[in-house]
């Protein structure tokens, strides 16, 4: 299977790699939200951390990813797209937009789903830390 040039670019030059600290270190920081989704036995784990400013905008985002090239590219792209957005704007990002941008084939759609999940999980974590009510049983409406 051939990868799109955009996937290869994100694989070779991943954007915003890293974290604002270990899970323990950021656990009590109310300006940081953490989303870890996936599982090693499924072959992909994404970790997204967002740093939110006083104005409710995502100042910075960092990711780490264990997964195939498409998973790495999806999470790298997600950090690019959410930076500068308000948390509610970031929640509007749909996996289908990631699929389109990276030209992912059908077998890689789950990578984009995981990236969308990581954004939602990180934002929910941030909101919870800041006393907002979050619907934990949010039904995901992914377009496959």
């Amino acid at each position, binding site marked *: 299977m051939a990868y799109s040039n955009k996937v290869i670019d994100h694989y070779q030059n991943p954007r915003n790699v890293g974290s604002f600290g270990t899970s323990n270190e950021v656990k009590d920081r109310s300006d940081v939200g953490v989303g*870890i989704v*996936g*599982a*090693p*036995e499924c*072959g*992909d784990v994404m970790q997204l951390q967002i740093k939110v400013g006083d104005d409710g905008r995502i100042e910075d985002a960092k990711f780490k990813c*264990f997964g195939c090239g498409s998973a790495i590219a999806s999470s790298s792209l997600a950090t690019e797209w959410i930076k500068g957005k308000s948390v509610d704007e970031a929640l509007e990002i749909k996996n289908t937009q990631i699929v389109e941008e990276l030209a992912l084939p059908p077998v890689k759609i789950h990578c984009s*789903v995981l990236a969308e999940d990581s954004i939602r999980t990180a934002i929910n974590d941030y909101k919870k830390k800041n006393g907002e009510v979050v619907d934990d049983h949010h039904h995901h409406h992914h377009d496959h």
Partner: protein
Amino acid sequence: MNLPIYMDNAATTRTDPRVVEAMLPSFTETYGNPGSRNHAFGWESEKLIDKARAQAASLIGAGPKEIVWTSGATESNNLAIKGAAQMYAKAPAGSEGRGHIITAIIEHKAVLDPCKRLEREGFDVTWLEPGPDGIITAQMVKKAMRDDTILVTIMWANNEVGTINEVPEIGAACRERGIVFHTDATQWVGKMPTDVEKDNIDLLSWSGHKIYGPKGVGALYVRRRRPRVRLQAQMDGGGHERGMRSGTLNVSGIVGFGAACEICEQEMESERERLLALRLKMERELASRMDVVEINGHAERRLPHLTNISFGFVEGESLMMGIKDIACSSGSACTSASLEPSYVLKGLGLGDELAHSSLRLSLGRWTTEEEVDHAIDGIVEAVEHLRRLSPLYDLHKEGIDITTIEWQTH
């Protein structure tokens, strides 16, 4: 050194130019049908077939009349397994209790699927599981034997890990009990010494394209004496190959197969040593330059040219993307159509995450030390790049065992 480098010789090999040379006249000069018994064109082709039969038989210590030509190891396995089961069935088609078959979960699909079909058709199948070393022992097979066991089929060397099963000992146990013994020797023959007499084999499958011969041609050894093994044909037609496999012979392919066997027989000893030295260098360097590198399967009982290595916290497909000038394969789910990690590695008791993190590198006749060195550097660089991205490697460095975490599976 030419890039990309080919390190997927367990998938297929480059046809040896000497083999191609030997094949060429059969296309335009000796093109008769060896089944044509009444003119010189047929006789000339038949001579080529006879020569190839002798070359193939010599490689495995068999007689020329014990070789049945097929389209490849998949067909050889189908003919051996279904053909023997149907021939020695204890009850007619449509009934239950037709006989017991022993095989293993680490077999190639071309063995597993015929056995599954037979299971649906009234045969009982025991699916042996190896220990963590990946090896099927004679003891395991003996323990599974029953009064109604009619067939044992155990591969000689595993295609994903290269581990070597106790084939001569399994053969001896089968002979003692009068059970037909088949081995899929696709990864073994041509690379390792084979003697169907000493090794107690009744049926043996192998393929041309794994031994530097052409694709689309294979052979099945069918024992003719002490004891004579009979098979139910799976391909009906003109009664070729003593009725066991009808169809006009693939003369060019068979000529290439024979030539490939002869070269393997002549060069086997030196080639084994050369490839083993290269494989050991690769394993030693990869394991010493990085942490959490697991060489899968038994430490010694493995093919000289094949290694299967897991690089912890790195996913196999992304690793292959990082070493795109090295052609190899991975046990990762993402490289297979099924999205499941390798059933063979899981069969060895490897956790899913290490199965996802594996590479299979298989060296061959044209692999050079320079290529091995290049591959080592490329793999180290790619693993290090991916570990910088890996949240699992961070957890490992923090001293957290990732298997103790409750992951959100999807």
